[in-house]
């Protein structure tokens, strides 16, 4: 009987720890939800993470926000965020994919140096380059533009994408492309028809990461954007909690609205996140 009781104790303890950890992680999230649903708009000094009154006032206010000229600001900013993030993902993955394939498959002069240089850029905190980037964007007349932001984001997302994809290509057996070449493909056809489909999960994940990084980025966007109609959502959000006014309710409602698309995308691509597409192609 005794060992059984010990086992029960261990079981209970591990569950208790797990529940505590989940509560710790969920508490702030629940607080934000509660705040968003609270029409008073200011955080009440209480511990319970659920609202006393349920109201969608804050959401309505955020979604329908417009400027003095009557332009629908939220729509504009949402569009900015979607375009900038998608373009960042597209540009970085489009460049990183062939580059990563070359680094994974070919031996060439400067290969190791290139990898080290890429790694070095990853060590550097992005914010440190904010000032020179500002000057560059200013010179290029790209301040306050989506293109400028995409350019900055893509350069930071690119090395990460490259590392991710290089690993993915290295994991794809060479036999596959050699088989394709013996079957009559050029190296390019083998890459497009065989390697890329096999790397699809990794490419999807890399896209997602690049998209998310751009979607959530605040500091650089806040530095380079000054027109309200050029803001991305994180910058717009921050303006709800300003110097003279702290609309926490709208801030929280905005935060939820910003995270919903990311959650939706995650849900959509999670099929790809599960690897194993190459399972069965080689070995028994």
């Amino acid at each position: 009987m005794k060992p059984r009781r010990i086992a029960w104790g261990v079981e209970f303890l591990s569950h208790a720890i797990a529940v505590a950890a989940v509560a710790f992680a969920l508490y702030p999230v629940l607080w934000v939800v509660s705040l968003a649903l609270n029409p008073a708009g200011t955080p009440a000094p209480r511990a319970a993470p659920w609202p006393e009154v349920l109201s969608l006032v804050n959401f309505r206010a955020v979604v329908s926000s417009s400027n003095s000229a009557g332009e629908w600001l939220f729509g504009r900013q949402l569009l900015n965020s979607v375009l900038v993030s998608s373009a960042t993902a597209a540009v970085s993955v489009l460049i990183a994919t062939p580059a990563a394939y070359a680094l994974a498959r070919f031996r060439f002069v400067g290969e190791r140096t290139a990898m080290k240089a890429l790694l070095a850029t990853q060590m550097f905190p992005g914010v440190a380059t904010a000032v020179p980037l500002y000057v560059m964007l200013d010179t290029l007349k790209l301040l306050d533009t989506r293109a400028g932001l995409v350019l900055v984001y893509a350069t930071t997302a690119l090395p990460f994408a490259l590392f991710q994809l290089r690993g993915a290509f290295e994991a794809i057996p060479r036999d596959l492309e050699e088989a394709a070449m013996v079957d009559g493909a050029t190296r390019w056809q083998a890459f497009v028809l065989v390697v890329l489909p096999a790397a699809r999960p990794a490419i999807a994940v890399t896209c997602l990461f690049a998209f998310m990084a751009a979607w959530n980025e605040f500091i650089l966007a806040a530095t380079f954007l000054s027109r309200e109609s050029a803001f991305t959502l994180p910058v717009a959000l921050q303006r709800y909690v300003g110097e003279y006014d702290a609309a926490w309710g709208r801030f929280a409602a905005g935060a939820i609205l910003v995270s919903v698309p990311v959650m939706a995308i995650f849900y959509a691509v999670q099929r790809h996140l599960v690897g194993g597409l190459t399972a069965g192609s080689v070995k028994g």
Partner: protein
Amino acid sequence: MAAVTLRALRKTLGENAILRGIDLHLNDGEFVVLVGPSGCGKSTLLRTLAGLEEPDSGQVLLGDRDVTLRPPRDRDVAMVFQSYALYPHLTVRENLAFGLRLRKTPEAEIARRVARVAEMLSIASLLDRLPKDMSGGQRQRVAMGRAIAREPSVFLFDEPLSNLDAALRAQVRVEIKKVHQTLKTTMIYVTHDQVEAMTLADRLVVLSAGTVEQEGPPLEVYRRPASMFVASFLGSPAMNFVAATVAPDLARVTAEGLSLGFDAARFRGKVSAGQSVMVGVRPHDVSRRPDGGLRFTVDVVEPMGFEAYAHGRVGETPFVMRLDGHDALPAPGDQLSAAADVDSVHIFDPVTRKALG
């Protein structure tokens, strides 16, 4: 269909000479097995034929066309990989059709060939499956089917059976032979498995350290190995070697615990009295005989059922002999007297390790 000619092929990777001057001519329709231990260059040779490796020097001819520097797609060869290398995102049908589509084969012709191959290899029920939903044996079949559907002039097999379990391997081996008999296309098959080598080959090419050690029909290579390397590589258990001296009568070799007659005609003029040689005798060629010239001390007996192998010593040299499984088996420590026929006694030069006759 095409003959294949290799001329003075050399290939070095870093410091390692992988191919050190390979000359081979394979006849149209021949089934040639390249066999050798790992690192002997057999896979590199096959990959050079496929166009996946470029030789440092030498020539590869398919038919009378020099393809040495041509990319794989211009060679009209098909290859079956050890790993099968099936395209993971394509169904079996699309895997079979892949090469044909690249070559812009008309759809009707593709459908015809896929159907023919599917029937030939009994994979018709698998056509709509993905590679990941099949067993190892089924994948192997599809990999073979993909090559067959191409109707190439030369087939290349790179250890195609080594990922299958023993029972399946025996079965697929027979199937490959059947496919060759049906298609009568030149096939080049790389393996380190001597059973595959012996059973499949019209011609065996034994490779060692980047050179051709011996080539010929498998039974001929087995019966007349040109070197101690070939002799020990083919046959299981491996051939026994004992250091011995040629007797003055030029018809016997002698050593401690060993006195065996050899084929005097075969070695005439090639050995001299008192010469130090290595004598090779296969375990299967030794039989118990009361007045035999071999005195064998038993250490371990391995009964296999219909036969048994006795591991022991002749003099101080380790030695293995085959015993009939129906006879009473000896015990460790027993002394046996045994003999071997004159034409199963091989004599090698102890320095060059080449056969003397």
